[in-house]
């Protein structure tokens, strides 16, 4: 397993809804837990992945995600079992959309 942490500051979009979990920890898939957290406007992402050595790709995928949503005060926690970058992006968007819907 490998643990990766990212943090982005000065987000503009706040999610106030309750925590949501999307996806499943199965082969080529991942679960994304998204929840509001007091992070001084920041967005923190923690990834625990079974596939070691893909830090550069994660950084790019999470960076793109941050550009799309600019989340503030949000904690995102991921358990990954070798999902491809496209699946990761899809699940991240699904997680945010699930929270926006709940509002």
């Amino acid at each position, binding site marked *: *397993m490998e643990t990766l942490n990212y943090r982005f500051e000065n987000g503009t979009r706040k999610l106030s809804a309750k*925590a*949501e*979990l999307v996806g*499943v*920890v*199965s082969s080529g*898939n991942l*679960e994304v*837990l998204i*929840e509001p957290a007091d992070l001084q406007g920041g967005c923190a992402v923690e990834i*625990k*992945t*079974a596939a070691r050595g893909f830090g550069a790709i994660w950084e790019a995928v999470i960076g793109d995600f941050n550009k799309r949503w600019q989340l503030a005060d949000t904690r995102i*926690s991921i*358990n*990954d*079992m070798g999902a491809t970058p496209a699946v990761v992006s899809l699940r991240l968007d699904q997680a945010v959309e*699930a929270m926006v*819907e709940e509002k």
Partner: protein
Amino acid sequence: MTVKTSSYLEANARERIALVLDAGSFEEFLPPSKRIVSPHLAQLDAPVSFDDGVVVGRGSLNGAKVFAAAQEGGFMGGAVGEVHGAKLVGLLKRAVQEQAEGVILLLETGGVRLHEANAGLIAVSEVMRAVLDTRAAGIPVIVLVGGSNGCFGGMGIVARCANAIIMSEEGRLAMSGPEVIETANGVEEFDSRDRALVWRTTGGKHRYLLGDCQGIVADDTEAFRAAASRTLQAFKGNPTGLTLQALEAEQAMLEQRIARFGDAADPQDIWERLGVEQAQQIPMLEAAPFVALVEAHRVKGTP
């Protein structure tokens, strides 16, 4: 959560529980944000899941106060680890404490999570005990089986400890899974890659014909929901506890079954002996015409 699918098989555990219970009624205990994960998997450097592969909580089913659990077949095949099992046991105990009208278990599992060895085995046996305690408290326990991983191993036994099982044709229920039988007894005995044989032997239709499940429905969340509600209503005011009399009747039914069908080489031989006309057509039938065709012939097990 918006869910558009209607196939029970295709839905994940969270989607199923949301669709089977009354819309918006489900309140989860120990939600993923609590991060109650398996301590054993981390030691093995294996991925964990924030709900340890099972969703448990309270809700309503056509207005009836029910407690419900849904196993996630995608996470380690729905296998029961220490935390996963403890969540099921806690749910059943709380259902007794809060005098629920019923417990609905959406099972999809290969049985015990072997990574967790004895802790997993003990967890499964504790779930069995909790199911029987719940029944003894006058609360019916109803099991739904319709996921692609089926319901096997120790959890197959748990399912048969419940008051009633509702399956789809796609659902499977057994003790040993196909690969286990092939490994232990050879491919001549059972070819686990022969999917038609696997479903003829462990699928919902065969289980219904043999009296191992009490209801069979189409692969549809609404059909499962309706059948679960009907079954729950049927238990209202009726005893739910396991009795010696019921156990003896079950034993007699099993003895009769092995005497009648013990030498049959294929489930289709059994269907023919049951007197079902055009038994070879059974795998092709939808749930409703299948029930109509076999109702007079099937073995009716004691609930």
